[in-house]
């Protein structure tokens, strides 16, 4: 409309900056009660959330007292050039009685299993452990260190170490409280060792490696992100009933100095004896005992070339060959569960996404409500100052109660959002857990593939012996070279049989692990999700009730304006 063109240059002054609005809104001293939970420095739901950084953390202005409303008002450069004089917002928006707006988290009575099963609870460090066997880990104090070994070569390689502090009552450990320094590389090693030793288990996935420049590596934000991720990871490990008792984890947590976790086999030996042990005769070496650990590991690319080749051939045969492979995945129950889990993964992913949108929408509405409240605060101030008629003062009073309510509601939305995030975070956790599940399933398939490969190998060896025997029997007195070959093959068969037994044992072991883990997953999922739903629902209801009472008051106050019969 007409008057607007001239207003443009004034707009910037009359409308408050978002920061100013934030400071006006965030002055509830009861928020100090929120320290019962870990500060979520980074949004648990996902790093892709754009608004993650804006959710107030406990180190914000939340602890200011109500009277600092005025404090903030005078502190921030208030650009409003309203031609008046000494008044501040204080007399407009007197500190509301926060007694009726106590923002306690609604899941105060939410029972957190402290036995370590509730892997997402952040309370392990603050509340005293109530069960017998606890293992509580925290990651802190990132420090830059110099890699002395390579410093001459690469001109000073710096990396970051973190202080890993453990408190535990488990008998496996030497002591109840101790700390070590570890770098990220150590975590990678730990993770790799665990996947080797605990095939078939749902092992929590470690944080990403993040291949970035060293510049970025040392940036405050990145280091902090990583610290949080590491802590989460270690806590998840501690929450796993089997893994928490593992040697690997114990060594990682306990042993100061260099991490004593070495690879079971190093590159060189693998190349020479390792994978090529299976079809021995190519190398013409004597057959020794098969190292179980060889068979038990999946073929690793680049090193177990021959084995990889054979297993690949086998899997192609499985898929394309006419004949059924010698051993098949027959466990129907397992196959059903697997399919169900795939479906579950998809649905969880979907819900997780929608939950993100929901949280954002909630946050947005709270923000806009706050801005509306602020606009009315300004209007109230204006009308009060400029009032010529009594009716203006009446209007200003009405406006003030609406403004106060809107600001309160905005704060409630903000709190609600923070709580919702904590609850719905479970969804994201389970999405991550699915990665571990898929890994465990693939352990199983590769173990099966190894068995199948060995079986095919055996049958082709037998076939060769047959052929040789047939050919040899035709020659009178026997064929020396052929007989020798047959003997060699028989030796190979023996070795391969041993390997096969190992492989089958391993496969069965993994199957058993899968089964147990699936049961554990089912139970935990059941409990976790019920708690999540309850928490979500209780929160939504609680905050809605608070909001209702805020608005009821205003509706009551403005009842006089209501049209008859409304």
């Amino acid at each position, binding site marked *: 409309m007409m008057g607007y063109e001239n207003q443009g240059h004034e707009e910037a002054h009359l409308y408050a900056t978002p920061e100013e609005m934030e400071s006006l809104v965030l002055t509830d001293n009861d928020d100090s009660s929120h320290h019962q939970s870990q500060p979520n420095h980074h949004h648990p739901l996902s790093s892709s959330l754009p608004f993650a950084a804006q959710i107030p953390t406990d180190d914000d202005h939340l602890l200011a007292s109500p009277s600092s409303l005025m404090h903030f008002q005078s502190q921030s450069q208030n650009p409003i050039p309203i031609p008046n004089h000494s008044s501040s917002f204080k007399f407009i928006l007197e500190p509301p009685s926060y007694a009726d707006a106590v923002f306690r988290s609604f899941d105060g009575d939410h029972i957190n299993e402290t036995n370590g099963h509730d892997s997402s609870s952040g309370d392990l460090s603050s509340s005293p452990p109530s069960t017998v066997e606890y293992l509580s880990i925290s990651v802190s104090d990132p420090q830059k260190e110099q890699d002395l070994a390579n410093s001459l070569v690469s001109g000073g390689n710096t990396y970051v170490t973190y202080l890993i502090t453990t408190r535990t009552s488990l008998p496996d450990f030497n002591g109840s409280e101790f700390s070590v320094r570890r770098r990220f590389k150590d975590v990678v090693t730990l993770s790799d060792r665990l996947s080797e030793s605990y095939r078939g288990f749902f092992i929590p996935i470690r944080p990403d490696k993040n291949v970035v420049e060293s510049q970025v590596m040392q940036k405050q934000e990145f280091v902090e992100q990583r610290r949080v991720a590491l802590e989460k990871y270690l806590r998840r490990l501690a929450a796993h009933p089997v893994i928490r008792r593992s040697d690997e984890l114990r060594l990682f947590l306990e042993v100061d100095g260099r991490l004593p976790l070495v690879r079971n086999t190093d590159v060189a030996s693998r190349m020479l004896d390792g994978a090529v042990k299976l079809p021995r005769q190519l190398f013409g070496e004597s057959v020794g005992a098969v190292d179980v650990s060889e068979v038990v590991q999946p073929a690793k690319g680049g090193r177990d070339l021959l084995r990889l080749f054979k297993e690949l051939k086998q899997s192609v045969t499985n898929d394309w060959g006419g004949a059924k492979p010698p051993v098949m995945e027959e466990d129907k129950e397992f196959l059903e569960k697997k399919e169900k889990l795939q479906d579950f993964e998809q649905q969880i992913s979907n819900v997780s996404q929608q939950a993100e949108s929901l949280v954002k929408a909630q946050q947005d509405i709270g923000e806009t409500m706050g801005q509306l409240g602020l606009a009315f605060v300004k209007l109230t101030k204006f009308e009060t100052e*400029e009032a010529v008629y009594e009716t203006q003062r009446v209007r200003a009073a009405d406006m003030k109660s609406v403004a106060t309510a809107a600001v309160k509601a905005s704060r409630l939305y903000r709190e609600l959002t923070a709580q919702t995030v904590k609850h719905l975070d479970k969804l994201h956790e389970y999405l991550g857990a699915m990665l571990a599940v898929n890994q465990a399933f693939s352990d199983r398939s590769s173990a099966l593939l190894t068995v199948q490969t060995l079986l095919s190998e055996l049958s082709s060896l037998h076939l060769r012996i047959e052929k040789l025997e047939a050919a040899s029997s035709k020659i009178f007195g026997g064929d020396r070279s052929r007989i020798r070959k047959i003997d060699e093959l028989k030796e190979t068969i023996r070795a391969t049989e041993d390997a096969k037994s190992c492989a089958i044992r391993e496969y069965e072991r993994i199957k058993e692990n899968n089964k147990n883990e699936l049961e554990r997953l089912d139970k935990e999922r059941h409990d976790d*999700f019920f708690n999540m739903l309850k928490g979500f629902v209780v929160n939504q*209801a609680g905050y809605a009730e608070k909001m209702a009472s805020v608005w009821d008051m205003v509706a009551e106050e403005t009842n006089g*304006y209501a049209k008859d019969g409304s």
Partner: protein
Amino acid sequence: MQQRSFSGVSQSPRSPSKQPPYLAVSVTDPAKMGNGVQAYISYKVITKTNLPEYQGLEKIVIRRYSDFVWLRDRLFEKYKGIFIPPLPEKSTVGTNKALSCAEKFRFTAEFIEMRRQALDIFVNRIASHHELQQSEDLRIFLQADEQTMERARSQETGIFKKKPADLMQIFKDVQSRVSDVVLGKEKPVEESNPDYEKLKRYVFELEDHLAEAQKHAYRLVKRHRELGQSLSDFGRAVKLLGACEGEALGKAFSELGTKSEMLSVKLQKEAQHLLMNFEEPLKDYVRAVHSVKGTIAERAAAFRQHCDLAETIKLKEIDLNKLRLTRSERTVDAEHEYEELKADGEEARRRFEMIVRLMNEEMVRFQEEKTLDVGLAFHEFAKGQSRLANAIADAWRSLLPKLEACSSS
């Protein structure tokens, strides 16, 4: 002419009936007429009255937006000093930059309803204003058949119709004068009335504050819709998850999903309620302030005219005296002109003073009206939010026992 008010006390001596006089108008039943570019919306305007100036107790006519504009323009011309009730904007020009695709929007149900409501309020305000309700133009608007109306509308010539550019100029002048005064640069031909200056400043600043509040109110409506949408999507996704889970947990998810979808509907409803009963009144308030600005401009024009004439008269007087001294033949003519000028000047002064007087009364009425309007809007806002919050709380609370039951199994 008798001053008639509808408090029901005074009656025309001619009226035989004992019933208090009433004039009730409503704007209803929007209908799309015509096709393509020529298409427009028509409204039924129903008048119920026992006033003798009107033909019969009830009359229904069909009017379109431009008819309302005609009425507003006529009143603006004839009743200077009075704040003419504001009209809703033409669809292509909106205070809401969020509006895109203006053409299609013109015919959405939401826009049509908003406009109908605003037009209804417009006519009712005129009908209940003690001066405006007596206007001949109002009677034409309420009673004339469509052809007459169309003729009247197309007869609008430059005499009556101020071109937008002129009005713009006047606004600019007023505005620059306000700022000049604020900055201390007095210009000539300006009322030096400190109270009035204060009033002008008040009006201009009020508009800014209101516009901001209205902007956020509109955004809040949008946020409600968005939250509703995401609740719906969330509910659907949760139900799918429930189907996948099965058993007790699956059932729990399904129930949650259903509640979520139900709340989504409530949110959309509340968004609409918020729009019609809170955002629209705020927008109406902004428009009303524009109307006041229009009157300010008229007053400035009248003042200038009055001053200009006063100047001219003075000069003429000097001339005349010169002529009288010289006993020129032109003296007689000059005296005629002088008398005419004096009459004009008197007229201009009267017009200006009437505007001043009316404005003062109008300001009181305006402030009172706005307190009531805004108070009602606040009440509706609070009621709506309370209703919504209670519905949300109830919905989620009702899930709890079911969740408890399921989880223990």
